[in-house]
């Protein structure tokens, strides 16, 4: 457990988090591994966790009839994958496939929700960090939407 807390502290998502909060969160965390091409989750499944990626790359995909599997974005070591557990009905909207072997911390969604409700200071810290992830993901999406490199500018 102490070892897990120390490793968690090194993940960029939790940089600078107070020790008491970190300790509190460690109770929600578990070490997980995925082999290449293994799915972390599939569209429609219940969303139970966030993944703090430590190694490897995960592709967010969706199957489009006629186009096959479309990779929307990849999420890399240092980033966080998934926050659907925050919002009802707590279901994943995409497939998440490990493109290469992945190591991550899984933060249990129910556990996080309960702890953030119990301690709003912690809740604010956690939500703020998720918001930053959403912010960068939104910027990525907007830039992709601009399709900057298409012919004819």
């Amino acid at each position, binding site marked *: 457990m102490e070892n897990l807390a120390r490793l968690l502290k090194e993940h960029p998502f939790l940089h600078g988090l107070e020790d008491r909060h970190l300790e509190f969160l460690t109770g929600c965390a578990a070490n997980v591994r995925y082999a290449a091409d293994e799915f972390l989750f599939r569209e429609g499944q219940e969303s139970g966790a966030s993944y703090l990626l430590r190694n490897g*790359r995960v592709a967010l995909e969706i199957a489009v009839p006629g*186009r*096959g*599997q479309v*990779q929307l974005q990849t999420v890399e070591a240092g980033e966080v994958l998934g926050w659907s557990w925050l919002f009802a009905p707590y279901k994943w909207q995409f497939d998440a496939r490990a493109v290469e072997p992945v190591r991550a911390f899984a933060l249990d969604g129910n556990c996080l929700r309960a702890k953030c409700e119990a301690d709003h200071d912690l809740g604010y810290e956690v939500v703020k960090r998720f918001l930053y992830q959403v912010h960068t993901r939104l910027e990525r999406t907007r830039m*992709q939407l601009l399709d900057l*490199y*298409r012919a004819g500018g």
Partner: protein
Amino acid sequence: MLPRFIAIRRALRETADTITLELEDPNPPAPFAAGQFNMLYLFGAGEAAISISGAPERPNLLAHTIRGVGAVTMPLLRARRGDAIGVRGPYGSAWPLQEAARSGRDLLLLAGGIGLAPLRPVIYEVLRRRREFGRLIVLYGARTPQDLLYRKELAQWRMHPGVTVKLTVDRAAAGWSGRVGVITDLLRAAEFDPAETIALVCGPEVMMRFCCHELARRGVSPRQVYLSMERNMKCAAGFCGHCQFSPFFVCRDGPVFRADRILPLLGIREL
């Protein structure tokens, strides 16, 4: 203003809409510097401003990577070895390679789409004079995996000590195991010392603006950032007026500008 007509030595198809033409120029009026461009003339079709993407150590070998998007560049995609092409140049300002070598700072190259072509001479020069330069970080964003330029070379460059090459594409089908995202993701994750880095940025204007925001967030002074601008060019000598960008003639004062000189102008619509 009279072009030199030179036969194509080698025509290399890079992607579906991009070709690299190599010309052996026996008498260039001046050796080119990384970042400069030539005006290429296709017989009867007209001229287009194309940056030079070859190695500066070989001033007689003019390499041009051309994306077929206009009335001149589309037919250039069909150019073959032996075809004669008109060349005027080299024109324009260069990337600050001497400053980078003198200061010993690391070089951070941010390339978007065809924007890797004007930066390739920098990569060649840094690898050739490896000990004069600090680290070299190349971050490159393209539309799809099929649009990536210089794929073999990208793989070779990253084998050199002190060189980092990271790629991302906007969209990909299954089978691509690289990153799907945008260049600012690469920039956000890149490890460099903001005070000891010179960033060279080339790509669509909006991509360069996003990069400038992220570089500023990382603490890189705009005085250490250089952008290569694109505008309509006809004469390349500051006579025709087409490439004006407020006080600048992009052909003559650019295409490479230090970011602090043009950043305030980039936000003004239709300038």
